[in-house]
């Protein structure tokens, strides 16, 4: 997590209420495009990609009482910067499970990986996984309900991460 702390931004943390995943993709895609962080085709691309290669992560193997996450991302050619956009949903929406696409899971946290660089040095996903699979972190996120607190938590140098690969 240490390696990717700089990828979080106070202005890229959102708390939203939506009915389904397409709605949040459109909302975030438009917003990032307005800020010049992604290309116009980003929204279409991320929706298409999520349909073909879903990114929902079932965290029930980690702990029974923590919410699931998704890591929507698309090809570097549609991105104009490198950052992580976090969306906390007030109520979960359905995603397909990344490692078992025929299964649907309720997802409450979206970590969009925006990356315009191919073959990046830091494996962003691997770092995020270390964060997700530490149950205390997901429980802590559940307790935080404003963006400032969430940002402080994500970038806190004392954040707990399991040291396993």
């Amino acid at each position: 997590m240490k390696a990717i702390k700089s990828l979080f931004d106070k202005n890229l943390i959102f708390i939203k209420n939506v009915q389904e995943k397409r709605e949040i993709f459109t909302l975030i895609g438009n917003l990032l495009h307005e800020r010049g962080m992604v290309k116009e085709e980003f929204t279409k691309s991320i929706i298409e990609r999520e349909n073909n290669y879903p990114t929902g992560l079932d965290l029930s193997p980690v702990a029974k009482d923590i919410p699931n996450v998704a890591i929507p991302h698309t090809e570097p050619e549609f991105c104009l910067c490198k950052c992580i956009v976090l969306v906390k949903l007030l109520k979960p929406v359905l995603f397909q499970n990344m490692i078992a696409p025929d299964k649907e899971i309720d997802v409450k946290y979206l970590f969009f990986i925006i990356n315009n660089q191919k073959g990046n040095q830091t494996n962003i996903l691997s770092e995020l996984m270390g964060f997700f699979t530490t149950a205390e972190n997901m429980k802590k996120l559940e307790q935080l309900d404003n963006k400032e607190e969430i940002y402080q938590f994500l970038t806190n140098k004392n954040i707990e991460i399991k040291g396993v690969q």
Partner: protein
Amino acid sequence: MIKILAACGAGINSSHQIKTAIEEEMKKRGYTIKVDAVVIKDITEEMMNQYDIFTPISKTKFGFDIKIPVVEAGPILYRIPAMAAPVFNELESVIKKIDK
């Protein structure tokens, strides 16, 4: 040398993590392997035929029949040893068969 093809939707996040994890673990277990990470939609039959093992995240369909062994590697992504172990074990048994 065993050549492994890892793949995911965008070719930047999951497949690279799988590549790194497989390379580290198989080295530890004493095998010489090489893993390439690519975008699923870039895979052709010719490309696939140049590898010994295919390790997608989950079951993946192509417009052609896959002739090499397939090991679904998704659980490795969690970085939880108990989830990754069955994948690594399956991969090792496939490597042993090919290595003979």
